[in-house]
């Protein structure tokens, strides 16, 4: 009796995608074009920053992206300049402490406004939110007067105090704490934890994605802050990196190649912070899409 072999596709056929490719439609072409242009717009300043940092002073004003005579002389100069390290450390200290304070204070206030019922809760929340509408330029005068009165000028505390807690952070954390079921809080209450323990042990681990996002925002905001550190500091030793970099040069000549070199180096910590915290954000998004 003849055995009929089933017809099997060859391994080559299985490997190849034999389905005819659909031609891209006009909508897709427009979307790709817009995305491409957007990508170029985002990347170009960074590319020019790195390009300029590799140029000699005489070539700085040429718009060519690839330097004619690339050099790492600017990096050597900046890294050998003791002031750069000082500013770098100042910025690291200020951005790190401010970030930690924001994570603690914003989440404490956000948690309180979200999970406790007390008279005036809504008014306090609105008052905090309303400060978002006041531009920094208006606030620097009272900040300066405060710093002057309390003797905080030209100090870390003077630079940091306005940003130790933010309305945006409080709002962000409050909204995220809304997603933590009250049952979790009440279960912990029944199990005997006090309110501070509940906040730290139960609520905080459940809002890690928000904490990560807030950490990135606050760190970047303080790392790149310019106006307030410029106003409140007097001595070169207290400069932060952006203030210090702007001092490369004088009225007659601005050393753009050095500024761009310093700027390029200063992006490294922000990249590190982003790489550390982005996985929490991504994980948070993934978790939010799962049932139960």
């Amino acid at each position, binding site marked *: 009796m003849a055995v009929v072999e089933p017809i099997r596709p060859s391994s080559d056929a299985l490997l190849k995608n034999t389905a005819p490719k659909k031609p891209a439609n006009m909508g897709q072409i427009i979307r790709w074009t817009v995305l491409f242009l957007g990508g170029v717009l985002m990347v170009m300043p960074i590319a020019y920053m790195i390009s300029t940092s590799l140029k000699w002073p005489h070539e700085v004003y040429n718009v060519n992206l690839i330097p004619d005579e690339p050099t790492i002389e600017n990096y050597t100069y900046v890294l050998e300049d003791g002031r750069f390290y000082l500013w770098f450390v100042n910025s690291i200290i200020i951005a790190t402490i401010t970030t930690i304070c924001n994570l603690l204070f914003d989440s404490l206030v956000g948690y309180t406004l979200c999970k406790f019922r007390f008279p005036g809760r809504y008014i306090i929340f609105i008052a905090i939110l309303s400060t978002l509408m006041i531009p920094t330029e208006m606030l620097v005068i009272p900040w300066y007067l405060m710093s002057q009165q309390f003797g905080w000028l030209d100090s870390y505390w003077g630079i940091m105090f306005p940003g130790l807690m933010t309305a945006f952070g409080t709002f962000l954390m409050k909204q995220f704490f809304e997603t933590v*079921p009250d*049952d*979790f809080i*009440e*279960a*912990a*209450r*029944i*199990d*005997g*934890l006090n309110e501070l*323990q509940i906040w730290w*042990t*139960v609520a905080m*681990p*459940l809002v890690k994605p928000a904490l990560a996002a807030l950490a990135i925002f606050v760190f970047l905001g303080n790392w790149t802050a310019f106006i307030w550190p410029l106003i409140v500091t007097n001595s070169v030793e207290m400069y932060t990196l952006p203030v210090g970099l702007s001092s490369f040069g004088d009225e007659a000549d601005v050393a753009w190649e050095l500024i761009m070199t310093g700027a390029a180096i200063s992006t490294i910590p922000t990249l590190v912070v982003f790489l550390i915290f982005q996985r929490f954000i991504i994980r948070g998004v993934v*978790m939010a899409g*799962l049932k*139960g």
Partner: protein
Amino acid sequence: MATLTLRDLVKAYGKVEVLHGINLDVGDGEFVVFVGPSGCGKSTTLRMIAGLEEVTGGTIEIGGRVVNNLEPKERDIAMVFQNYAIYPHMSVRKNIGFGLRTAKMSKADKEARIDEVAGILDMTALLDRKPNQLSGGQRQRVAIGRAMVRDPAVFLFDEPLSNLDAQLRTQMRLEIKKLHQRVGNTIVFVTHDQVEAMTMADRIVIMKDGHIQQVGTPSDVYHSPANTFVARFIGAPSMNMLPATAKDGTVQLDNGFGVPMASTDGPVTVGVRPDDLGLGDGVPIIAGRVTVREPLGPETLIYVDTGAGGEVIAKADGRTPPEVGAEVTLRAAPENLHLFDAKTGLAI
């Protein structure tokens, strides 16, 4: 283990009173189930016992001690929540041991207690898993384990089975009942499912609109309902209610049938459960046309149109039920009929 006593318990939100003076005594080791429709106040009562809601009036006593002003942690209670409330960032071991964080025990004793509870709940192999690696039933067991580990005086369960599918719910129902028989703690269990209440409870507390309607054993509330609400709420399908008038030892149904029954004269409501209403023996009380059949295997539910928009449910034989459209006369034994005052709804 402990007794639980509610005395004139009142709860109000502003001017709106939602609990109107609840009185209840729960015995040591008793399994009491609060049941009622949404908004009846059963969960509010439980949360007040737990200390999660303030008491507006009256007292709550646990083990003879008034606990109105005590924090939840000081009441010696443990609660299992509807959505389990197990922490997703902690392992099963940490979740179960969470209730011992503030206990004055050595670490070794705590670990031993966690292992003991995990053993009772058959979860030893799952101790290192995270909640998202567990099934719904396993998560529920973790929640129960977290309550058990503290060995509280009173267990409080707030609709813990309502998130489970039907099969798992039946299984967990049995497990909780076995657990109660094993550990013997006092349990207050809240549900809106009367089947859960009937199958698990030593006594059932039926609530409506912030009032207790009846407290009794499952048999009591099923066979001797205090009023029409309890009669219709307990039992599935619901009890059929027929308007009638009692006079001179006879209850004359509005549909024309009469049944000799002792009752005070006046308008009454006659209640008859579908289980007690059929095509077999008894006195005829309803005539009508079959509109729908629901085969259940050994028996078939038949929906009978009694005219003027009235409909009753009865049981027929599973093998030879009447056809849809057939005219039938339904009968019941007089001792299986329940009489209620037509105005107050109270049992006569």
